[in-house]
């Protein structure tokens, strides 16, 4: 198998790492998307505004990448509404209970060499791998 480096993916990762670093170094905040979203569900918190701005920026960043860079996005998730709702609920409950997701544990947590985040990332990757195996090769 010839190994070709997927440059846009590498660059995308570098941009996300830089954004996470910027938010922590200047603002002292962790760029964990589920954590930032979770904080938005209780609007009386004093740090509501920065969370809203970060999420607005992300939505805008996605939009900009389509119109400036022509980045492809899928038109749909090619799954039933039941699967989409179930996946969304599990991702939300799981990230909430486990205090983080792919960005918070996977980038910022591992980036701080936090053992808790390294364990968390290994667990969700393994469980997601098993789920995909069952979905694609057993059902």
């Amino acid at each position, binding site marked *: 198998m010839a190994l070709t480096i997927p440059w846009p*993916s*590498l660059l*995308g*990762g*570098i*941009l996300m790492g*830089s*954004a*996470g*670093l*910027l*938010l*922590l*170094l*200047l*603002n002292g905040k962790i760029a964990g998307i589920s954590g930032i*979203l979770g904080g938005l*569900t*209780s609007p009386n918190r004093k740090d509501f505004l*920065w969370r809203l*701005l*970060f999420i*607005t*920026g*992300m939505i*805008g*960043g*996605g939009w*900009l990448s*389509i119109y400036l860079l022509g980045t492809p*996005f*899928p038109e749909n*998730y*090619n799954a039933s509404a039941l699967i*989409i*709702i179930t*996946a*969304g*609920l599990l*991702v*939300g*409950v*799981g*990230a*909430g*209970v*486990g*205090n983080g997701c*792919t960005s918070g*544990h996977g980038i910022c947590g591992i980036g701080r060499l936090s*053992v808790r985040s390294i364990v*968390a990332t290994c667990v969700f990757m393994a*469980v*997601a*791998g*098993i789920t*995909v*195996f069952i979905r*694609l*090769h057993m059902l």
Partner: protein
Amino acid sequence: MFYVIALLAGVLFGIGMALSGMVNPELVTAFLDISGQWDPTLIFVMGGALAVFIPGYQFLIKKRAQPILTNDWSLSKNNSIDVQLIVGTSLFGIGWGLLGVCPGPAVTSMLSGNSDVWLFIVAMMAGLIISHQLKTKVL
């Protein structure tokens, strides 16, 4: 300035997320499907992010008493690997494996015209609210 940085970090994170290809669940599923046609692209995404974040944290952040624009670090002091972490990240893994979508890519896709992303977002936000109730009342 604090709020400008929050918005800017969000924009950078969103562009990175779009460029990386993680907004496409097929890429995520192909990475998680190690017994099929394994696609290692996600390693480059995470590798790129960590290649910036790990040295940035070690050399710029760790030695600082406080962030540049605020007084305190909002970092988790929780180092325990407990049942809550394992159960939460496992549920997250099932949801992630089921559809190939996690919080960051979903937020980035909100204005992309993806007809399924809003359903996922609503379910995920409901999940985050449920997790908050679980944590305060049950766990």
